[in-house]
């Protein structure tokens, strides 16, 4: 059962209450599931938060994860975006503080430009660049910037949404 691992993006609508994040994180640790990333934010309804969890495991484990999440009383809706068979958009935001002295300054700025990053902070020795994109783009940008020397890195984790008219909402 170990070999066949899949990466899944699961979107949830949950009650915006204290302790809900702990319940979900606790479920993953108690049942030995993996969390690759987890993001939370309020929706248009202030009583509801949307959570995006990226997880990895055998398809049967993924199925269990979805069922166990649904079982939590404060979880309103769960959708395995990878499973529904529709296309989805995924994005992540990352802030990278790189060494930017001498030649690396120009190099870092070029990389920022190629990946449509924004330079959000400048100092004599460093540049801080913001990138948004899917995993491949973010990874590619980070890899190239390693040449310049990355001082600090902060990633948000993924958010994702189905393409087209279908959406995750409370019925």
């Amino acid at each position: 059962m170990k070999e066949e691992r899949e990466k899944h993006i699961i979107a949830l609508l949950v009650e915006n209450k204290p302790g809900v994040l702990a319940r979900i994180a606790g479920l993953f640790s108690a049942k030995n599931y993996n969390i690759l990333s987890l993001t939370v934010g309020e929706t248009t309804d202030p009583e509801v938060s949307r959570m995006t969890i990226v997880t990895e495991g055998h398809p049967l484990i993924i199925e269990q994860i979805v069922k166990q999440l649904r079982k939590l009383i404060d979880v309103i809706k769960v959708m395995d975006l990878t499973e529904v068979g529709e296309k989805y958009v995924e994005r992540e935001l990352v802030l990278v503080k790189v060494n930017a002295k001498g030649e690396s300054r120009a190099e870092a700025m070029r990389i920022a430009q190629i990946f449509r990053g924004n330079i959000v902070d400048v100092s004599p020795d460093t540049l801080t660049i913001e990138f948004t994109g899917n995993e491949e783009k973010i990874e590619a940008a980070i890899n190239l910037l390693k040449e310049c020397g990355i001082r600090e890195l902060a990633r948000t984790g993924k958010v994702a949404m189905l393409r087209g008219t279908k959406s995750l909402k409370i019925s």
Partner: protein
Amino acid sequence: MRLKGFEIFWESLIREGVEVVFGLPGGAVISIYHAYAKYRDRIKHILVRHEQAAVHAADGYARSTGRPGVALVTSGPGATNTVTGIATSYMDSSPVVVFTGQVPTSLIGMDAFQEADIVGITRPCTKHNYIVKSTEELAKTIKEAFYIARTGRPGPVLVDIPRDVSTGEAEFEYPESVYIRSYNPNIKGHPYQVKKAVDAIVSAKRPVIYAGGGINWANAYDELKMLVEIIQVPVALTLMGLGAFPGDHELFLGMLGMHGTYAANMAVTECDLLIAIGVRFDDRVTGKVDDFARDAIKIHIDIDPASISKNVIVDIPIVGDAKVVLSQLLDELRERKNVNWYEKHKEWLERVKEWKKKYPLKYENSDEVIKPQYVMEVVSELTQGNAYICTDVGQHQMWAAQFIKHKYPRHFITSGGLGTMGFGFPAAIGVQAAHPDDLVIDIAGDGSIQMNIQELATVKQYNLPVKVVIINNGYLGMVRQWQELFFDRVYSETDISVQPDFVRLAEAYGVKGLRATKPAELEKVLTEAFEHKGPVVVDVHVDREENVLPMVPAGGSIRNMILAPPRTKEEDDRIKEAKPLDFPS
């Protein structure tokens, strides 16, 4: 009507129909206890001597009635002492509502005296839990707690009440209904799945039913019996299911799994259709999962979608309440008129009967020493299935499961999932509180009973006539058995023959104590105990190294059972010469 939180608490419980609360007071719930004086005519409180026992008692109450049991304890250690009880009821899906006191909201997080984050601690072992943030929310929270505990797959719910919430004031109106948008258990089975299941039943040649605790929680025993009798199919029950189908029925195979009967385990192994109802494919049942009913089509009826295809992948899942889904199955079966069920299964039933006859549960009785299995047979004979049998955990539990005829649902109360030693006695207190006029027996081990023996004071105080039958072999017997069979007979730290004189200990609590050491006196002693009006402790000295058999080694396939004790003659001699129990004088 404006009420104080401590009044709202009791008013809400009364409106939930709570008859009895098991609890132990402390600082954080002192005002709730103070207010109790006003409500004592309408609701009974049983003061336990340890908070773990309060939850087990509430659990026993719930298991024997189907209604939520209630425990009330203070903050900090009072709350943490409930954790084993809560985890026990969680594993066996028992509806228990536990109220814990908490330090005032202004002190939460300050490491205040007797502060513990009990909501955090119990998050993974409750169905849901709450901390009440204001007196206004108290009634609604209590309503939700009971609703969540008893609906869907039942389970424990904890409500943490800070002291200022119970002393604060709010407008009281008990909600009439509950709506939780994220919680809507599915009750009715999907009609298409029901049809598919019936198709599978119609075409099966060797079907078997594997049913469990879900039958009890759904009150689905009549439907189960009807199904069995219509389609003529043998039934194996899990430990939690015992009593959900009459133990003296000819289609009953016995318990399946690690200590299951040969017939039950072989029927499941050889069947071509497994009808699983209210069960969760626990490892103690399945043994090696890949081998479990390997060639069978599997139907799984369960209220909890997460139970389905968790351990064993099933072909026809039906999510719903067992009673409702079984009724749907029965309706659908009535449409299929042309099946001669008996003819269809005749060959299979013959084979199963052969297994039952060839390898029944057995043991070698003795005139010298009391065999534990014999104790169970005598208990069974004396009570005829009418008594509530509670157990602790270990060898005695398995013998009670195997050798007592469990005829009626909700009469066998045991910790299956968590396997909590110390469960039986306090659970029996809860059962007795719910059924004051019925015979309630706790079959205990000498190890288990010492884990909650302080409750002798509780049965004395309320004159709860629980009969505690200690199957005393001076060992942590199940562990010793594993050591004998799988760990080179090194009995590492399992000899507990240094033990109190249980008769005198009972007497010290003011409870009647009896002892049986010879087979000839057993029936007389047990009869005397069961006829006694008050609580009794019976210390039964049994064969020290008797084993629970059959046995499937952990992780093994259930088709490979150890049927006979693998002992040499020298071993037998050594056991015979083993020292008798040694009491400190």
